[in-house]
């Protein structure tokens, strides 16, 4: 026990900096470094260098692209989709979470577990599913309505269609964000309202929803940011049909959809895109920053549940509907489509496995599957690692609160497809790494970037409940920082970290936008394979549906393994 000689000498600084307790900070800085390099590569690449004999961005080009009505239309569609989907998700997430957690509704446990299921459905798969259900020409429901009543119930190839598909698809994310807030509502606040004579419904709208507002707003912003950046839905339901284009689909079209890739136009679109996303992200950051500040004391404060009485059937109906819209409807559509012998034969109740046979005859299928799993797994691990350290940095060092928050939030400002483009440039421009182009490495990097913000939030909301005193008690007991981190912090945030790993693993296997511009023949993944097949021949929809089914089952099996392996227990983590 001797005084560390500090006296602000160079040596002691070095010793202090070598202290393991700074590892989280260093990891955070490392991530920030990679991230900044990527951003620089994107802008330097598309503005200055250009590709081949194509120029970078010229003033003339900028004027032409930026001052067009075309761009205004694209931006409007992009933003409208974001706002609409965010609003739907925020509301249904709060309703679902409250019913499942704070009422005596039947089948609560089942609904709690099931809510994760939609996560196992890749967006492109859900898109295929929705087409199968609500396409005006071939959608099962629409065909039924046309034959029975003579009109089309709902056209999924519309702005509202895209908004609805994303909004209901956001249920799992909305639930995961709202759940901790619902749990932390002091029951006496609701009880007080009921004792004051408000009914259950009045209490929900007057007391519960306002209390949940911060969490709902958080959901709204996250889904909005996600929807702004999403590529799959607008591409399948809008752009591929002609009519609705978003910045994400347009960037893809100018790079992959035109005879000569217009990287400079893509660069301009990216700039506009990033600016819009940054506005959203700034709003998000400024409004949710404060919630990081207060710690909720952990511990077994008692949870009480509301007695629903006869209303419990309504509650079940609501949850079933929300979950159905998030999962069952597109799933059923996909399943039907994958079993149909030909498009349009959905109601003849003829079923065939021919589509699956055709799928498995694709020669590259095996390597594509391996790529998908490998990239997803590694991305999951890296995301969990980064998220843990970044969350720690933002919560546990007084001096770096802002930094950690910022690092974890700022990547949200870059839509996935822009990452793809940026990493494309990074790999191309950094000397020595261009050999990585065509491997899984750039894919993994793009996947980690896109999953990290939400992942960090999951760890953060877990870590924030671990009071500093638990850590302090450990160091006073004589444990070093690294022991404390391994034996006290990690076990207590295991739920959040596992959630993050799973979220990222699953999410990576589903991701299309981030990787679509990075794929060459050698590193293809399933989502992109489905896109290529659908893009080449819309008549191949049944085979694409079969492929979607396979991807869905792969993801689902991971979810189930964790659910039943016990150790994972990720649904119990919260």
């Amino acid at each position, binding site marked *: 026990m001797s005084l560390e000689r500090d006296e602000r000498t160079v040596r002691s600084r070095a010793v202090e900096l070598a202290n393991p307790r700074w590892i989280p900070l260093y990891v955070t800085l490392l991530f920030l470094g990679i991230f900044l390099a990527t951003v620089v590569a994107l802008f330097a690449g598309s503005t200055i260098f250009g590709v081949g004999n194509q120029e970078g961005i010229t003033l003339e080009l900028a004027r032409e692209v930026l001052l067009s009505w075309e761009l205004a239309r694209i931006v409007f569609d992009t933003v409208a989709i974001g706002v609409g989907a965010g609003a739907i998700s925020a509301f249904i997430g709060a309703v679902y979470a409250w019913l499942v957690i704070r009422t005596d509704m039947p089948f609560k446990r089942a609904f709690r577990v099931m809510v994760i299921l939609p996560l196992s459905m890749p967006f492109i798969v859900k898109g295929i599913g929705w087409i199968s259900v609500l396409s005006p020409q071939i959608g099962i429901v629409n065909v039924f309505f046309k034959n029975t009543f003579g009109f089309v119930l709902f056209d999924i190839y519309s702005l509202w269609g895209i908004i609805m598909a994303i909004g209901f698809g956001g249920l799992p994310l909305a639930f995961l964000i709202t759940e901790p807030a619902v749990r932390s509502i002091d029951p006496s606040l609701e009880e007080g309202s009921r004792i004051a004579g408000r009914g259950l419904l009045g209490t929900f709208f007057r007391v519960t929803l306002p209390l949940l507002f911060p969490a709902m707003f958080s959901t709204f912003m996250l889904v909005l940011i996600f929807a702004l950046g999403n590529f799959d839905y607008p591409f399948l339901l809008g752009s591929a049909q002609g009519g609705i284009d978003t910045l994400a689909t347009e960037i893809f079209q100018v790079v992959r959809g035109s005879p000569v890739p217009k990287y400079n136009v893509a660069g301009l679109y990216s700039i506009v895109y990033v600016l819009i996303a940054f506005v959203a992200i700034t709003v998000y950051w400024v409004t949710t920053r404060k919630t990081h500040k207060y710690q909720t004391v952990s511990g077994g404060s008692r949870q009480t549940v509301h007695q629903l009485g006869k209303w419990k059937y309504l509650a079940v109906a609501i949850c079933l509907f929300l979950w159905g819209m998030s999962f069952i409807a597109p799933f059923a559509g996909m399943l039907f489509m994958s079993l149909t012998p030909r498009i349009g034969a959905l109601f003849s109740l003829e079923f065939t496995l021919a589509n699956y046979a055709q799928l498995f005859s694709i020669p590259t299928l095996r390597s594509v599957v391996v790529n998908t799993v490998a990239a997803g797994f590694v991305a999951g691990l890296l995301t969990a690692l980064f998220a843990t350290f970044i969350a720690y940095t933002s919560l546990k060092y007084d001096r770096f609160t802002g930094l950690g928050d910022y690092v974890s939030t700022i990547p949200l400002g870059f839509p996935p497809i822009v990452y793809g483009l940026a990493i494309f440039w990074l790999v191309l421009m950094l000397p020595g790494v261009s050999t990585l182009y065509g491997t899984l490495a750039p894919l993994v990097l793009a996947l980690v970037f896109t999953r990290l913000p939400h992942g960090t939030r999951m760890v953060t909301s877990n870590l924030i409940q671990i009071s500093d005193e*638990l850590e302090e008690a450990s160091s*006073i007991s004589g444990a070093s920082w690294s022991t404390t981190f391994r034996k006290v912090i990690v*076990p207590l945030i295991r739920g959040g970290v596992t959630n993050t790993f799973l979220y990222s693993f699953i999410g990576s296997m589903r991701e299309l936008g981030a990787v679509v511009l990075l794929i060459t023949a050698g590193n293809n993944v399933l989502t992109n394979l489905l896109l290529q097949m659908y893009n080449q021949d819309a008549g191949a929809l049944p085979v694409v549906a079969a492929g979607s089914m396979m991807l869905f089952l792969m993801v689902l099996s991971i979810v189930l393994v964790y659910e039943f392996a016990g150790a994972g227990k990720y649904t119990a983590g919260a």
Partner: protein
Amino acid sequence: MTVTVENLTKIYRSDGGGVVAVDDVSFEADQGELFTLLGPSGCGKTTTLRSIAGLERIDEGTITIDGETVATPGASVKPENRDIGLVFQSYALWPHMTARENILYALKARDWPKDDRDSRIEEVLDLISLPEMGDRYPSELSGGQQQRIAFARAVAYEPSVLLMDEPLSNLDFKQRRRMRRLLLEMLDEVGITTIYVTHDQEEAFEISDETLVLNQGEEAQQGTPQQLYEHPQTPFVASFLGEANLFPASVDAVDRADRRARCTVSEGSTRIEMECTYRDESVLSNPTVVIRPEDIYPEARTDGAAVRETNRWSGTVDHRFYRGSFTQNLVDVGDIQFKIKTDKPVLDEGEDVAIAVDPGDALLVSSG
């Protein structure tokens, strides 16, 4: 081991300036002593304790444990390298470990000999009289039991200093009383230098050898419980430790031989003369009279005998609060109100009464 704190200052800095949480505080807790830090909420008790534990960097001063300097503004021994135990106000038991594992964790971290760990755990579980509870998780223990496990964890590795931050404040009144006894017994058994933080003067009086009263980050007064109660040096200490009548006064005449002073106390349109005692002449420039309620006698108790000439005033009983073992009365002498404590409810509201104070019980302190 002796803990010495010299000129400790701690400032919490934030964007909008800083809070001086502890301001130039010095004290020494001797080997085996139970030293209490006492003061109202926000006075810097926890901050002082955390500084001693090494959980806060200090801005001024020195902290020494057993002759070795552990903290200066420039350098600090890490908490894990200080030979201390700390019982948190919230207990801070690790929720994912059983009681036994909580204790074991600390023993391991402190390199307690491998073969003796199990027996040591049994020993401390016996010490806190919870030998059966070792395999329970914190959430399966009552508040009082958690408190004892936290204590066991803190003393298991035989640190040379034990720090406790309001360890009983989460317990109900009865538990608190029981735990206080138990704590004293357990501390007796381990015989360790203890620094104990509390805002409860009754608790401080019951357990401490020596107490330092803090006020707004500054030292108010240090002494044994009796010294603090009988000879408070400031109105703050007088009123924080038990009940007190406080009257700002002006000095009319001084009798240095007897350390007596004749003073005037005025309030509104009322002026009364009062014969008082003082301990230090420095208080005379700006004094406040401190009189404990139990030192004021209503005339009924003097039974008409030996009626005083001085320090005797007539008033009216304004209010009576029956408290069971005693009764508190408010007596108005003109605009001046006295708090009086009597064993029995002898006075009635509205009754005229004469009250008297022994000059030795009217203590002059500096108004500060």
